């Protein structure tokens, strides 16, 4: 022992350093593509900037303007609508999953057919629903006409337009939740169900007290994906209405795009301010989700 060389710096600290080295690539990516842009967005939101000329520091003026902007409130209201109604995808997905969770001939085909809407792009979904709702030749408006005698142009009516777009969004989102639940259903503990059946539990009570608790992880993921999906609802709004008629189907993410990047926009500061607000709203949910995950890990 006496003539053993003193261990080098690397040898001595290997265990401490190694994790950081392995984390570095991911960490650097995260820094460059997530953290720095967030800081930049916040920074830009305090400026008046057209993306070309000089940035002019205007403090919180963008936020003050936002608070006085009718479109902002419309967008906010619609975002809440999206959040609440989009969650319907979860029970709907569960219902479809339960329905498909049986062994009959060709079930794989049915499953893939139900999953189909999630595979096609949101843009295509948007276009299909636009034609579905289109006055004169759309299937839906024809149906409404046959039913009530009057025609309703969903996407041109400020009362229905947001619901119309959300319905289009629910179609693929339901398929997504369905897949999550189908995998969850495969992992159910058959013994528990058997025991429950012996205790004479069936139907809804079996579902509520035995099956659903076991599906909690799937529900959690479905929740996260759906909430985030509702807040980023951009593609469908852009394709189906571009925020119209007269801004009544506006949501925050599209409003941000329109102000900062569209043909009539180039107000980078204002767009960034909207982005910051959207980020803060998302942060509330993300924090809740992360807290829950931490709690679960501690309880293990």
């Amino acid at each position, binding site marked *: 022992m006496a003539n053993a060389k003193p261990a080098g710096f690397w040898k001595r600290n290997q265990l401490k350093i190694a994790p950081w080295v392995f984390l570095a690539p991911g960490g650097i990516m995260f820094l460059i593509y997530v953290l720095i842009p967030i800081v930049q*967005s916040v920074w830009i939101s305090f400026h008046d900037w057209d*993306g070309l000329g000089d940035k002019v520091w205007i403090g919180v003026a963008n936020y003050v*303007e936002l608070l006085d902007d009718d479109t902002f409130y419309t967008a906010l209201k619609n975002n809440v609508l999206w959040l609440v109604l989009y969650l319907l995808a979860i029970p709907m997905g569960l219902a479809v999953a339960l329905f498909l969770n049986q062994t009959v001939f060709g079930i794989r085909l049915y499953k893939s057919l139900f999953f189909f809407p999630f595979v096609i792009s949101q843009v295509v979904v948007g276009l299909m629903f636009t034609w579905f709702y289109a006055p004169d030749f759309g299937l839906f408006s024809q149906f409404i006409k046959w039913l009530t005698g009057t025609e309703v*142009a969903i*996407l*041109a009516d400020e009362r229905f337009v947001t619901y119309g777009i959300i319905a289009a969004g629910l179609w693929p989102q339901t398929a997504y939740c369905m897949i999550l639940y189908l995998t969850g259903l495969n992992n159910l503990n058959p013994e528990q169900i058997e025991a429950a059946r012996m205790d004479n539990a069936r139907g809804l009570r079996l579902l509520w007290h035995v099956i659903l608790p076991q599906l909690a992880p799937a529900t959690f993921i479905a929740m996260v994906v759906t909430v985030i999906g509702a807040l980023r609802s951009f593609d469908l709004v852009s394709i189906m209405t571009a925020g119209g*008629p*007269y*801004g009544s189907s506006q949501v925050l993410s599209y409003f941000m795009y329109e102000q900062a990047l569209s043909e*009539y926009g180039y107000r980078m500061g204002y767009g960034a301010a909207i982005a910051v607000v959207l980020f803060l709203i998302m942060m509330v949910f993300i924090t809740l989700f992360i807290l829950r995950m931490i709690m679960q890990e501690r309880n293990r």
Partner: protein
Amino acid sequence: MKTFKALAGLALSAMLMGSVAFAGEIVINSDHSDPAPKKAMEELIADFQAKNPEITVKWNNFDHEGYKASIRNFLTADPPDVVAWYAGNRMAPFVEAGLFEDVSDVWAANGFDESLKSAAASMTMDGKKWGVPYTYYQWGIYYRADIFAEQGIAPPKNWAELLAACEKLKAAGVTPFAIGTKALWPTGGWFDYMDLRVNGYEFHMDLTAGQVPYTDPRVKAVFEKWAELVKPGYYLENHAAIDWQDAIPQMVQGKAAMYLMGNFAVATMKEGGLTEEQIGFMQFPEITAGVPMAEEAPTDTFHIPSGAKNKEDAKVFLAYLASPEAQAKMNATLGQLPVNNQAAKPSDKFLDAGFTMLSNAYALAQFYDRDADAEMAKAGMEGFQEFMVKPGEVDRILERLEKVRAKVHQ
């Protein structure tokens, strides 16, 4: 933000490749990506090179949306020698930022002040010319001549006649006006014409330049007249749900009789199955008697960026572009009107009518979204769309527009 940077990077790298300019080479950036404009540009460049063999032309063709997004970047980062853009207030941000070159000398040397007279005003800022126009097209009311004949209606010359015609059509179960406002801009055409006819060109220009509040009684008067068409339901129902092309079938099927549009609509109408005899063209009728008749004629232009490397040859190109021969040939391919009044007249029935109308026009407006500031234009056209759905809300809409105007033009 990320998209913007990506676009900037893309545009930058594209420009870097094109920037190794030889003496006698000019780089042109434009968005002539549709078939007819692309062919017109190809012909123009070939003819120019045949005439000026010492100058080589390098042409970068963009799609429309990509062009609008990247022009701001390449003008600052690595400017080409010639760029395509639009007249009126649309070029104002670039002129004010010092990104466009003053080309008044090209105008003076070639006598363009005379031959391009109709577009001179919309190319002038601070008393200087900032580019050269090469094409425009007329706006006006395209109508079903056979339906008019059937109902015994003569093309209306004034507001009272127009209202009478509308009433007659409506009674016969034909919607007087086709329109699709989903993309918002078709509403701009209506507002422009109503304002040009009620208050005249000067007032309209002051308004779009942001010098008159939208709550002004004269603006209110425009909407009162407009309401005479909106309230009785003289426009296609559900117009907010459809694009302008989607309204054409209504006209083809004889369910609608008139369409206030640019001349490009004729091609779509013919594709839909209407014959040339079924389509008529008329000037937007007079509203306030004695107001001189100004027309809507969006003009497309070419400019020299102030950072161009080969301004000498770029000016040769602009001079050629504005010559009567070049404009006649180019516009024959485009199916539009040459700006140069020495150019050969087009043979097409509608272009001919448009040519006569524009040549006698008191003045030319570009279009609401080209004359007004971009942010104002967006809010304005949204307001017009809302008005066309809920005419009773006019006061609230105008107050909202005034709020935007006050913010944009501080």
